């Protein structure tokens, strides 16, 4: 259903002894396209003025509800604001929320995963049970419960989405730590007489951390989808702030007359997710390739 779930279902993120070998391929066009799009998103987030000449909040009442045209690429909304400019200016907030949520999720997950992987049987058992319990709540529901308890707003949105994703990440990180722990080079480090602390710090953690790049890339796209879902339900960022999910929600009132108000902000989310999935998979394959060589 989502990139992370798919990765979860495919088993360990980075099999130390891979059973299903992937052919080493050159960079495919989808990956190149995704990288290009990611660069554009980064530019839009850092310097939106370079990508559009119009302001996201500039009202032109006489130009309301214009269909997409060369002048207004994505059309205009009820107050004549340019939808393309709003999507571009919304990039920063949407991406920041996605990054924030991913950081929260990965941070919590790394803590749980590493403690479970290295902390011995009791810690491992306890954390595994906890994860099993958290898995009983679908992520969106966990996030909604969180919003109900702490009240809506961008801060809650980030924490809620982050925590909702944490159990999945934690399970993958734990698996990774265990796989690395059982690998030959860790044994070698022990044979060389390195202390346990040094083995953990210098050998296990850096190697277990490498696939985090993959998780983070896949995760940002998913986090944006979820955060936008909360905004869409009216529980995150509120209009008129140009955030993608909030724009979708605001455009819903005019669905009958002005489809472009919802279709284009949504397209931004879809494109971002697809790009993040495709780049994440690419990094994953690269990492796998490196290990197998």
């Amino acid at each position, binding site marked *: *259903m989502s990139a992370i779930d798919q990765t979860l279902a495919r088993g360990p993120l980075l099999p130390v002894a891979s059973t299903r070998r992937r052919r080493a391929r050159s960079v495919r066009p989808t990956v190149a396209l995704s990288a290009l799009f990611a660069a554009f998103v980064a530019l839009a987030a850092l310097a939106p003025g370079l990508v559009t000449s119009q302001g996201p909040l500039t009202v032109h009442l006489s130009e309301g509800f214009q269909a997409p045209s060369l002048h207004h690429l994505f059309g205009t909304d009820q107050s004549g604001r340019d939808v393309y400019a709003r999507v571009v200016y919304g990039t920063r907030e949407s991406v920041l929320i996605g990054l924030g949520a991913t950081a929260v999720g990965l941070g919590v997950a790394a803590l749980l995963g590493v403690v479970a992987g290295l902390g011995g049987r009791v810690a491992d058992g306890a954390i595994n049970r906890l994860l099993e319990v958290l898995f*009983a709540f679908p992520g969106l529901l966990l996030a*909604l419960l969180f919003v*109900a308890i702490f009240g809506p707003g961008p801060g809650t949105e980030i924490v809620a989405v982050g925590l909702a994703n944490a159990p999945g990440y934690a399970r993958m990180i734990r698996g990774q730590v265990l796989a690395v722990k059982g690998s030959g080079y860790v044994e070698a480090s022990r044979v060389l007489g390195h202390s346990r602390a040094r083995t953990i710090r210098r050998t296990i953690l850096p190697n277990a951390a490498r696939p985090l790049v993959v998780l983070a890339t896949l995760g940002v796209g998913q986090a944006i989808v979820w955060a936008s*879902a909360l905004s869409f*339900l009216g529980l995150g960022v509120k209009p008129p702030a140009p955030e993608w999910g909030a724009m979708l929600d605001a455009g819903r009132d005019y669905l009958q007359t002005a489809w472009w108000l919802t279709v284009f902000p949504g397209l931004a989310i*879809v494109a971002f997710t697809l790009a993040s*999935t495709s780049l994440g998979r690419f990094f994953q394959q690269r990492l796998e390739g490196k290990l197998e060589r």
Partner: protein
Amino acid sequence: MSAAAITVLRRLAAAAGVLLAAATVVFFLEQLMPGNPAVAILGGAGAHPSNAQIAAVDHQYGFDRPLLAQYFSYLGHLLRGDLGTSYGLHQRVTQVIGDQLGPTLVLTSTALVLAWVVAVASTLLSAGRGRTRQAIGSGIEVVLAGLPQYWLGLVLLVVFAIQLRWVPVVGGTSVQGLVLPALTLALPLAGFLGQVTRDEFGSALEQPFAVSARARGMGEREVRRRHALRHAALPGITLSGWAIGALLSGSVIVEVIYSRPGVGQLLVGAVNNQDLPVVVGVTLLVALVYVVANLLVDILYRVADPRLRAPARS
């Protein structure tokens, strides 16, 4: 007692443990709520309730009792199937949820069936049938799986209800009104299931049992239908337990888009009003459904896959 019965009992105990722990997690999360729940019950801070009113509500709902006492009475009520009283609607939560459950169940079960039909069709039509077809099939699946439901739903609504007028914009609980919501819920899931069944299907076609079936003179269509498909369905069965959870959370969004009555709408309204008993009730209900579904899947799996059955004692 047979080994199979013991396995089932063990699974049951584990499921009960997960549910108990889930209820506990939710209870203690609730305690983190900033502010006084009594104020929320009395209509929020804007209603300016007096201290005497707050004290009365505290007493009525038991908020003035020690935390552990509250916890055990909460568990006791849960065991009797009592989820408490809604802060906003002043009705039993079980009744509030019960009233909305029907349409959501219809929606999610239709979507699950639809998703399976699409996934199996896509697998049968494209897996192991040459590179181009395979690439098209898996490309469609990746895109479907990546579509956020809130966007897919809006696009379907614009195209089929508003532009083409094939179905009503607000369908209510009619059969016609079910088409778009069920599709919105089913398509991303179908994309996801399809990817998994395709992988399995492809590898099943190269397995010795497929080769031997061909050697016996079985046609390729029969091999696909009788042998490979059965093999490919196995991980799909496992995923169905997970999928039910995903469908239930997806129905929250779909019900809001299509203004369809159901548990999802109820939940979003309750989150907006910080009506915690309803939110907690729905959350626990979904956790229960998820755990039970996974238990069933586990048992079904043993039925479908003879390799997993406990070997007869020799």
